[in-house]
């Protein structure tokens, strides 16, 4: 192991890597980019002194922040590398919610403009973290996690409706 790197890094990496990628993928929509973000996150974590017990939450929050930073700064995969997909293609049908790729792009653009805490709470919740985990990771009360997530979802829904009515 490289000097100056925390000794539990490999163990934490193997346990948490899938979740870190999943969180970043929620923000970026792309597995390749999400894996790049995961590398950045673990590089920082490897040289940190975050207590082992707080690692999972720290990594999830860091993944969301880093991915949102990528989204905001426009550091997106070059368009030539985007998978060639039909603009009419739809996302997997999940509980009757049918979302076009264009709508997904709009939601991600809107995500980048949300207050950071709302965006992170939303992404973590939709990545499968429990209310208690989101609360602990963001230093919120469990009661306010629902409020924060609801506001974010409402804002994103409005963004989709705004575009739908203008189409």
């Amino acid at each position: 192991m490289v000097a100056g790197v925390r000794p539990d890094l490999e163990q934490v990496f193997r346990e948490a890597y899938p979740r870190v990628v999943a969180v970043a993928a929620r923000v970026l929509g792309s597995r390749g980019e999400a894996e790049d973000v995961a590398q950045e996150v673990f590089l920082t974590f490897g040289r940190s002194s975050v207590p082992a017990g707080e690692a999972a939450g720290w990594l999830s929050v860091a993944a969301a922040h880093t991915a949102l930073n990528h989204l905001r700064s426009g550091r997106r995969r070059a368009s030539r590398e985007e998978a060639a997909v039909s603009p009419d293609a739809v996302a997997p049908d999940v509980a009757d919610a049918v979302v076009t790729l264009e709508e997904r792009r709009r939601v991600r653009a809107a995500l980048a403009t949300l207050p950071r805490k709302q965006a992170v709470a939303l992404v973590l919740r939709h990545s499968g973290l429990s209310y208690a985990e989101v609360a602990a990771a963001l230093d919120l009360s469990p009661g306010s996690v629902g409020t924060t997530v609801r506001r974010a979802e409402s804002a994103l829904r409005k963004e989709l409706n705004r575009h739908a009515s203008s189409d």
Partner: protein
Amino acid sequence: MRHPTDGTLRRLLDEPAGVADADRAHVATCQVCLTALAAAREDALLVGAALLADDPSLADDPSLAGGSSLAGTSSAAGLDVDAAWSRLSRTMAADEQAAADRASGAVLPIGKQSKARQSRWRKALRSPVIAVVGVAAIVTGASAAAAGDWFPIFRAERVAPITIDPADLGKLPELGAYGEVRFIKPPDVRKVPDAAAAREATGLAVPLVGELPRGVTGEPGLIVVNQVSAQFTFDAAKAAAATQGSAPTAPAGLDGSQFRMTAGPGLAQVWTEARGVPAMVVVRVVAPKAYSTGVPFEMARDYLLALPGLPANVAKQLRAFTADGTTLPVIVSSDEGVTSQTQVRGRPATLLTNRGNALNGVVWVEDGVINAVGGSISADEALSVARGLR
């Protein structure tokens, strides 16, 4: 009873057990709350679907998606965790090496750099490319110089490609085999925050890129390097040993003669893709110069070009350079790239085209500064950027 908050309703969708019994009982019988709950469910489903990754292997576990939890799991089937760990390990090892080099460079006087740095540069000096550039810089120099003074013998004003068979690359002589190579000013590569800092560090203006090629986006990182200088002292005995006695006898006066080479300072703007691979690089480096303490250069050139180990076709190409000491050879492996001559801003330029079109670039010298534009862009794009630099 007051209606539960929107936050409570939202949690009721995901974690009903986390909501107080009284709130749950209220919602079950309150039309206002049931309507709000339905709206919350609809929004959550829509946003959840919109946030799904494009890659199906990162999609949620469908068994949960329609159940009480509206948010996904972190299921990520198909991820290669071993490969990802290897990648992270490599990056950390490289970072540590770079940090060690920076740290040693900061505290040690020149000439006493860390073993790691010395080792890296010894390795670089052993590289056949460096050796050929060094030999070429010497043999293309024309003017003899008065003893005791450092006379300029080489100043790059243009570039020209030398094509080398990959099989010959490994046979090329190592400069260190013919004498002693010593860094007077070792390279110090570092990042700087902005163009002003780059200018202050190098004295060079950061070229402004007009239109970025398609797929190259964002702000570039800036890297600067100091002026590097090295000295080579020819050692006839060492050369004879290295060539196992097959070298021609060194002419009188060549043994112990010294050559000094400088290059830089320079700067590079690097546009990086999401995976960390440079998408495009724009480079400006003060062109190499070579000086001598005084040696009859025709003699030195003839001797060096006659050394065994220098492939005949490389020697022939070097000989073909004009003997005015102003042409810098650009080494191109014949199995990887092809070159063609073009013009950038009125100067002769060499266009390097990688077979398969994966990497392309253009190099030219302008007012004593080597300029290069290259990357995973097309040759036309590289030329367009080069010609549009301001």
